[in-house]
């Protein structure tokens, strides 16, 4: 595989082989990045899951007489709508809560889809080498030389924008880093003793891959998955900006930011609130991912 392609994925992997060390939970606690990042993430997930119960209003209910009410810290605002209302009179706090679901859904779905595709390709390439490796390498380089935004634009122009189209398009495009990282991780694991032992014992390739290799490359997979999830959430916002993301009235944070863009210079809070929420989510994901990477680094570096 091209060294520059590998380089593109580098800095992301924990590096080296991972061995589950004793006292792992103590190490997790001590790693502040994972604690803070993970904690924030859990908070957002909780809000998303509990949205139907904690949201004060229906996020889709329009109230044309009460449009653009500012949040409570402005004079014109109040506690009826603590975070104000949007240009169609919908309660912003409720939309924010429900929006967490959509943004998380996008991040997780895209990570899963692209993760499945990329990991399979990477593991096969790393395990078998030779022609398989060349084929995967070719596919990865082809994928990388296509500008993602433009392909996504063209595809969405083809089939129209919607939540599932966005997820599928991003999922089918963002597998490259998975493939590269899983490939090199698999190559490292391939030469280990117990893998050789399993092969000698006559286990089928599938069993070796799923039973021996996968558990060992899993940590790498998790780190890449977190970063790709964050990237997918941001890409969805960019697609919404270009008019081809999820369709209104869905309260995805990306769409809320893109809709609030028109009001940015006058009602800054309309874009600042979902923007801050999104930034917090991305930040939490990155922090947790980086912390995980350090956590899973071999002994001697912790």
């Amino acid at each position, binding site marked *: *595989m*091209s*060294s*520059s*392609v590998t*380089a*593109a994925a*580098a*800095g*992301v992997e924990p*590096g080296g082989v991972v061995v589950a060390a004793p006292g792992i939970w103590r190490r997790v606690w001590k790693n*502040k*990045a994972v604690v803070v990042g993970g904690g924030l993430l859990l908070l957002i997930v909780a809000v998303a899951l509990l949205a139907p119960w904690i949201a004060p209003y229906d996020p889709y209910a329009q109230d044309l007489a009460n449009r653009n009410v500012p949040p409570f810290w402005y004079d014109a605002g109040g506690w009826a709508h603590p975070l104000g209302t949007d240009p169609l009179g919908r309660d912003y706090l409720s939309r924010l809560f429900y929006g967490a679901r959509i943004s998380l859904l996008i991040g997780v779905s895209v990570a899963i889809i692209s993760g499945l595709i990329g990991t399979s390709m990477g593991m096969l390439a790393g395990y078998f080498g030779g022609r398989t490796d060349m084929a995967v*390498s*070719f596919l990865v*380089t*082809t994928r*990388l*030389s*296509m*500008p*993602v*935004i*433009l*392909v996504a*634009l*063209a*595809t969405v*122009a*083809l089939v129209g924008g919607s939540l599932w189209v966005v997820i599928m398009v991003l999922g089918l495009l963002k597998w490259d880093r998975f493939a590269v990282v899983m490939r090199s991780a698999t190559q490292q694991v391939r030469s280990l003793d117990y893998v050789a032992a399993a092969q000698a014992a006559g286990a089928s390739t599938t069993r070796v891959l799923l039973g021996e290799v996968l558990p060992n490359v899993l940590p790498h997979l998790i780190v890449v998955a977190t970063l790709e999830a964050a990237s997918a959430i*941001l890409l969805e*916002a*960019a697609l919404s*900006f*270009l008019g081809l993301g999820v369709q209104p009235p869905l309260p995805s944070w*990306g769409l809320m*930011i*893109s809709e609030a*863009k028109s009001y*940015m*210079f006058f009602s800054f809070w309309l*874009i600042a609130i979902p*923007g801050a929420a*999104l*930034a*917090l989510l*991305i*930040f939490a994901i*990155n*922090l947790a991912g*980086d912390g995980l990477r*350090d956590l899973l680094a071999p002994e001697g*570096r*912790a």
Partner: protein
Amino acid sequence: MGGYILKRLGLAIAVALAVSMIAFLLLRLSGDPAIAIAGEGARSEDIEMVRKTYGFDRPLPVQYVEWLGKTLRGDFGESIYFKTPAAPLIFAKLETTMALGLLSLAFALALSIPLGVLAAVYRNSWIDRLCLALAVLGQALPNFFFALLLIMVFSITLRWLPVSGSDTWQHFVMPTIALGYYAAPAFMRLIRAGMIEVLEADYIRTARAKGLPASRVIFKHALRNAVVPVVALAAVQLGFLLGGSVVIETIFALDGLGYLAYQSITFKDFPVMQNIVLLLSVIYVVLTLASDVANAWLDPRIRVA
């Protein structure tokens, strides 16, 4: 070495062809260009006339081969929307996007190298976390939000910089920051990882034990080794920046290749769109090829990969 280059070249060409085919298919399937050309209010006869005039009624493979042949001969066809030859149009806009890409890359490096070094030297401390936080900061906001924030602060409030356009160097400051910031975290992590690896190597410990000052150790040895993969990444990132500049170009009215690409998708301007995708992927492929060769030359171990 020669064999290595040939192999890579062959791969590069294969990739470029594959991308061109995908782009061609994708665009043709995404809609009827005849309607976009005929415009609002056109009747079906108008659309049929357009269809025949531009040859959209012929089978797809025929259209593809014809297009590929012409492009390789330098004839990029004519922009359906602008009705001028596509090649000069594309290359004129490429200048702006290239300038933006190079500047953004420089900014990303200028930001991430010091942060990466700091993070590596003080690894696992709060400085490490802070450096990462700073690097990730610009990336946590959607790029159009970040760009508009910059405009709000620097143009409207402070009136230090012009809002949009590409006439003077001041016009490029905010776009560079907005676009370049996105590449920073990747570089930072890479430099940090590379430097950590080197800093903990035995020969470094030896050098320190011998009493060499820390700064000399860092800059003379560690950074030099950590930079090698950065060169590779820089080539790759430049490719990404060129392909991902649509949003920034739209907001800052930079009239570059990214915005032209967006317009050509919107208006189903196929000659322009196909050639832009092909051009960008060729540039990307050339960049990766060049960096592969440079890497292989610097580090003989890679040639076996």
